[in-house]
């Protein structure tokens, strides 16, 4: 009999305990769902973090961004990362996959420095996945240095970790659209004001310059720049010297392409000068001769400079002209 009582007591204790735990859990989930319905990213402070994330009794998983958004922290990429993360969370919030087992949270350093200490973080932003019932492992940290923090990458990571498929929805960027509209109205307005004389539209010089700049833009490798996004110049970490040109032919810096752009432009101007020289009106032929001489000097010098840059970039190239 005595044992029965004991047994009963123990059983009751266990059930109660379980019950209470379940109660707590459902409370938590309810609370979290409520929050995330209000705002897709739940802002967590120290207590919240301890209560909702650190506590081992969880049956939901969380994606948490650790960041430092306040302006005095001067973390510029935190803001960008926050924007991207917000896009992800927003897309999740309004997608079909939305459920009460995955939540998105965020801990700001100024609200939750304990959380940072607990995870031994000393950088921001960091994305960590908290799987249900477990502490995050090494693989649950998102590798920002390799993948970056664009929303697409974050989604890929989330899919990897928690098997949640999120269709990304970026709010359309109206500023570009407005800019285009503004431009068009300005152009139309200009045309309307100048409606009596459309001559400037048929001016070959204007169009010529425009087209030549477009061609130079392409052939000086600006498209490569926009695709690959190289740094402006090269800075040697040891000596601190900055070099304008990269040493290999397969790579280039932005500054370098600008120089090449100008060199091509200069050569073009030189040839045009050569051709304009005989047409100038002057008493003696001196002015014409001078212009022609300037033209050819410009062409030759700039071309040989270009060749020498090329030579320095392309190992084993044997030829040079005037300038080594």
């Amino acid at each position, binding site marked *: 009999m005595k044992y029965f009582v004991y047994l009963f007591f123990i059983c009751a204790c266990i059930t109660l305990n379980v019950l209470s735990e379940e109660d707590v859990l459902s409370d938590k989930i309810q609370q979290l769902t409520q929050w995330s319905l209000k705002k897709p990213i739940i802002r967590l402070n120290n207590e919240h973090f301890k209560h909702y994330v650190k506590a081992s009794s969880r049956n939901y998983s969380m994606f948490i961004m650790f960041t430092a958004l306040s302006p005095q922290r001067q973390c510029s990429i935190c803001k960008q990362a926050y924007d991207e993360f917000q896009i992800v969370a927003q897309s999740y919030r309004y997608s079909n996959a939305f459920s009460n087992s995955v939540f998105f949270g965020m801990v700001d350093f100024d609200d939750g420095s304990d959380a940072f200490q607990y995870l031994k973080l000393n950088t921001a932003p960091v994305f960590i996945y908290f799987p249900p019932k477990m502490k995050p492992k090494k693989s649950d940290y998102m590798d920002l240095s390799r993948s970056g923090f664009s929303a697409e990458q974050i989604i890929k990571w989330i899919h990897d970790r928690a098997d949640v498929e999120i269709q990304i929805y970026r709010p359309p960027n109206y500023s570009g659209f407005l800019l285009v509209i503004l431009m068009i109205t300005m152009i139309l307005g200009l045309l309307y004001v100048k409606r009596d004389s459309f001559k400037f539209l048929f001016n*070959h010089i204007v169009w*010529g310059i425009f087209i030549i700049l477009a061609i130079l833009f392409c052939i000086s490798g600006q498209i490569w720049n926009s695709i690959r996004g190289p740094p402006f110049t090269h800075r040697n970490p040891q000596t601190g010297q900055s070099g304008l040109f990269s040493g290999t032919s397969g790579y280039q810096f932005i500054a370098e392409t600008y120089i090449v752009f100008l060199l091509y432009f200069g050569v073009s101007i030189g040839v045009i000068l050569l051709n304009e020289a005989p047409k100038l009106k002057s008493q003696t032929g001196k002015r014409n001769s001078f212009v022609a001489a300037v033209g050819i000097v410009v062409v030759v010098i700039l071309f040989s400079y270009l060749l020498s840059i090329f030579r320095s970039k392309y190992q084993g190239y044997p030829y040079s002209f005037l300038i080594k």
Partner: protein
Amino acid sequence: MAAQVTTNQSIINDDSGSLTTDSEFQTNVNSKKRLSSSSNILPTSSILSPTGLTSLISFIVLTCAYISGFMSRLFSVIRFESIIHEFDPWFNYRSTAYMTENGFYNFLNWFDELAWYPLGRIVGGTIYPGLMVTSGVIHWFLHMINIPIHIREICVFLAPFFSGLTALATYLLTKELWSRRAGLFAAAFIAIAPGYSSRSVAGSYDNEGIAIFALMFTYFLWIRSVKTGSVFWSCCTALSYFYMVSAWGGYVFIINLIPVHVFILLVLRRYSLRLYVSYSIFYILGLILSMQIPFVGFQPVRTSEHMLAAGVFALLQAYAFIDYLYTKLPRADDLKQLFFGLMIFIGLSVFAVVVILTYAGYIAPWSGRFYSLWDTNYAKIHIPIIASVSEHQPTTWTSFFFDLHLLICLFPVGAWFCIKELNDERVFIVLYAVFASYFAGVMIRLMLTLTPCVCVLAAIALSKTLDYYADTETSDMSTSPVVPSNDNDENENETEKNNRNLYDKAGKPKPIPGRRGPTNTNQDTDDDTSIVSSNIKTVVVICIAMMLMLLAVHCTWVTSNAYSSPSIVLASYNNDGSRYIIDDFREAYYWLRKNTPERARVMSWWDYGYQIAGMGNRTVLVDNNTWNNSHIALVGKAMSSNESEAYKIMTMLDVDYVLVIFGGMIGYSGDDINKFLWMVRIAEGEHPKDIREQDYFTENGEFRVDRSGSPILLNCLMYKLCYYRFGELQTDFRSPPGFDRTRHVEIGNKNFDLQHVEEAYTTEHWIVRIYKVKKLANRLQAKNALRQVQRRKSIYSTSKKTSGQARKQGVILNKPQVKKGTKVLTRKT
């Protein structure tokens, strides 16, 4: 060496030719101005009329351009042998050989079972047959006149042959656009420009080789038909366009550029009946003809790439109608604004119709390959297989300069001159310049379409400059009778000097200053009209001549050093300059051909598919026609998973042999380990659960094969196949055993055994390694013998009573057999 000498010779001829042409043409010009002086200028030309001489000289120059274009592409044939290069040409060669053996119709219906096992490939419907048909026709013709030449020789020399023709087509185009002198320059430029010779050296038997000729010829005919408005020329344009469609997928460039030209002409109010006739006829005929190619089929009416042409066609009809009304209606001038509004309305509605049809699904949207030209990041995200090919990368400025040298500097100037003196046909070349330079910037491969345009515009710029500066007549007329004799001497001296110094093309106009400098000095002091003094002129001409000389040298150097490697046969040079040939690829493929069963299936990365099929004559799983991404991803997955996982895939795909390319032994950098990350990426795209790119990097995100490399990498199939028994090999006495000379590390995983594959063949320098996939292994005997007994009983004791055999079979325990037994059993009961 022989080639070089011949090349020089031909180019030298070229010089003297064009030199005389220049002065000759000026003679013409001047003779128009001052009839009296013309007889003074050229006393020696009394035998021939000036026009006759001009055409003779043009003929000589063009012949020389043709020959130099042909000769400068023969480096690889002379250094190695007459061999087909690289990857795609092997397929083209194989299908050409098939066509000459089996006839054209069998070729069109050819189902190639050697490729894409087990799917196969319908070749006739998935290629542009123009290349094969062209060489087939040449082969047929030569055999008809009893020249028994092997089809391979034709395939090898087809591209140089056609690049000569390209020079002629470029001459014709430039002549239509500017002048005959500019045309001669352009022909000489295109003949040697590396941007074009990169794809047309002897042995690179690919579509581009003939397509650039077709492109330039189509453009020439188009300009001609716009100029004349004749039905004949526009029919010719359509026919040439048909040839282009049959030859290369780049025909899309023509069918978009010509409509853009028409559209811009309409916007510029340069509409004329000539334009109407030429475009309408070209579009209709070209549309019908292009649909005859099986691979193209109904694309011209069903895809967005071709909708620009259709839209402009509709617009042009509307414009012509309104224009007609305008001329017929009385007081039409009052309704000018109405007509204008109507036109804009029609234009917008045509656009809207195309957009609506696209959304409704009648017109396919832009294909990924085409779309990636506009949205440059598209391919990187969505189609890794396109992004993985090195020729689809964007172009650095160095590549532009490397391929075009001086021409790229003169290119914008030519465009400027064309814009300044605009007419209908120059609008075209300007548009061509803008679009082609954009595309060439996005994709290094499209440098090929830019090169002809650059040659044309640079030639225009140069010839316009030299028209004035190489002109003697404006300053000295009295001394001119002396000139010809002088000229000849100088010319010969120059030629000799050229021969000594091996200076190609030694200054086209260089001899001119030579003879003019001394004769002019006494003249230019009393020269008071507004012209440049002749000293300056001389300097200008000399400078330009030197730069041209440099161009010729540069072009020859680039073609010889960068673009003439067959990439099947490799050459290395010892310290004493002697050459050492590495012929591992052919060795391995020949081994495959001779030592494996005829139906053996070889798994390799897709780069080598065409070569294995072409040289080894064995079935491959994937090849360079990358039409089935998931199949490639499966091979990638097999390569990047561990051995037992890979074995599952390989048995599923019926693989008999696996072939890998390994360069670590001799330091060949284009091997499979260096391509390996792309295999992983492509596999990850299709099987993200099993393959993760991240797993193949070290903690620091590096891709390393040494001891610190990621364990998954060190145990994947590709690693094992490449480095099997490599750890026992000491390549150099200074380095430890197993030292990879490509990546300069000692490999991390050395002494391992292969479980499911066995080494079949490794070539002399270990570049190609072939492994045989073992048949399904016998099951390992289970540790508890009890279970075996039970199973044996349960299966065999009821159905068969022969215990001796049953025991044997029970030991083997082949799983499929066991299942079959149970099935039979259940069916019986």
